[in-house]
């Protein structure tokens, strides 16, 4: 099942790299020598940090390196998660086709969960307003030849939380742990 496939992708990450990931996952400090600052925090050298980040880029752990923007704050107030029910043998081609549109920021295959969830392709479409998202989806249907397949647009109405993923929790913890549920969002 899905998790087995996932496990094949997960990289073996050393404890040293885990500490580095923890130090950078919420962004670099905006100072003249950010890597020197991280190095000091981790008790190592600036060049060691830079080399190890370079390796994480080379081995594919890091997909993109740079400024991460928030769409909503830039005027792209509408986002629709557009889910498609396409034949399994076409999902890869169609997913790549949709992923090439500049208004699209995600294109993933995910499992169907019949009967309540028939969709196997998930894409995120951004626009200044709903009309623009709807128009873009029509363009995508047109351009990728998706007329025959059902899709639905799930517009987001409220954002409760948005931040970079946190990869650095302990590998396992006891299920009976009591979480404090009174923290504010973010």
């Amino acid at each position, binding site marked *: 099942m*899905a998790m087995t*496939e*996932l*496990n094949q992708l*997960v*990289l073996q990450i050393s404890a040293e790299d885990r500490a580095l*990931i923890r130090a950078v*996952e*919420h*962004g*670099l400090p*905006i*100072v*003249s020598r*950010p*890597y020197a600052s991280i190095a000091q925090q981790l008790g190592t050298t*600036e060049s060691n940090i*830079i080399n190890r*980040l370079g390796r994480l*880029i080379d081995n*594919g752990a890091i*997909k*993109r*390196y*740079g*400024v*991460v*923007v928030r*769409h909503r*704050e*830039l005027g*792209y*107030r509408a986002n629709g998660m557009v889910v498609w029910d396409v034949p399994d043998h076409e999902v*890869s081609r169609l*997913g790549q086709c949709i*992923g090439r549109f500049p*208004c699209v920021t995600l294109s*993933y295959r*995910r499992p169907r969960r019949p009967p*309540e969830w028939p969709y196997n392709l*998930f894409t995120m479409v951004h626009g200044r307003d709903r009309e*623009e998202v709807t128009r873009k989806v029509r363009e995508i249907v047109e351009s990728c030849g998706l007329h025959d397949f059902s899709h639905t647009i799930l*517009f*987001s*109405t409220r954002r*409760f*939380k948005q*931040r*970079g*993923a*946190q*990869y650095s*929790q302990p*590998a*396992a*913890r006891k299920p009976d*742990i009591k*979480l*404090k*549920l009174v923290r504010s969002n973010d």
Partner: protein
Amino acid sequence: MTVPGDITAYSGLEQRLLNDFQRDMPLSATPFADMAEQLGISEDEVMHTLQRLQNNGAISRIGPVFRPNRVGVSTLAAMSIPVHELECVARIISAFPEVNHNYEREHEFNLWFVVTASSEEHLDIVLHEIEQHAGYPLMSLPMLEDYFIDLGFDINWR
């Protein structure tokens, strides 16, 4: 602290900082000085402007975007929550450090969130805890394949 709603509300410098450095930021010891050199301004001006954009929320962060399911394991989860309980349940779910995105969407499945953990075991435990605390079952939809080549988001695409 203002949150401008349109890209034209940003100065030319801000627009370039938002748009031109989303990928392939050089891994040099002095990235902000390098950006300043490209832009023909001072390093201080780059850092101040970036800090301001980060403070007002236009920039989420500067640094790595990790490829899904390489460093940790994640899944997209959906729940169907009665409208009058949605806000309360959403707050409970957002409180989990493993939850990084959490949105209300217009659908019978009206709460959608991403859960990221360091291992499959840890992910299973967290999903179970979330169901326990929220009091509703979740539908887990882990990514099976990624078709998206992330080149950043061209803010001037229209």
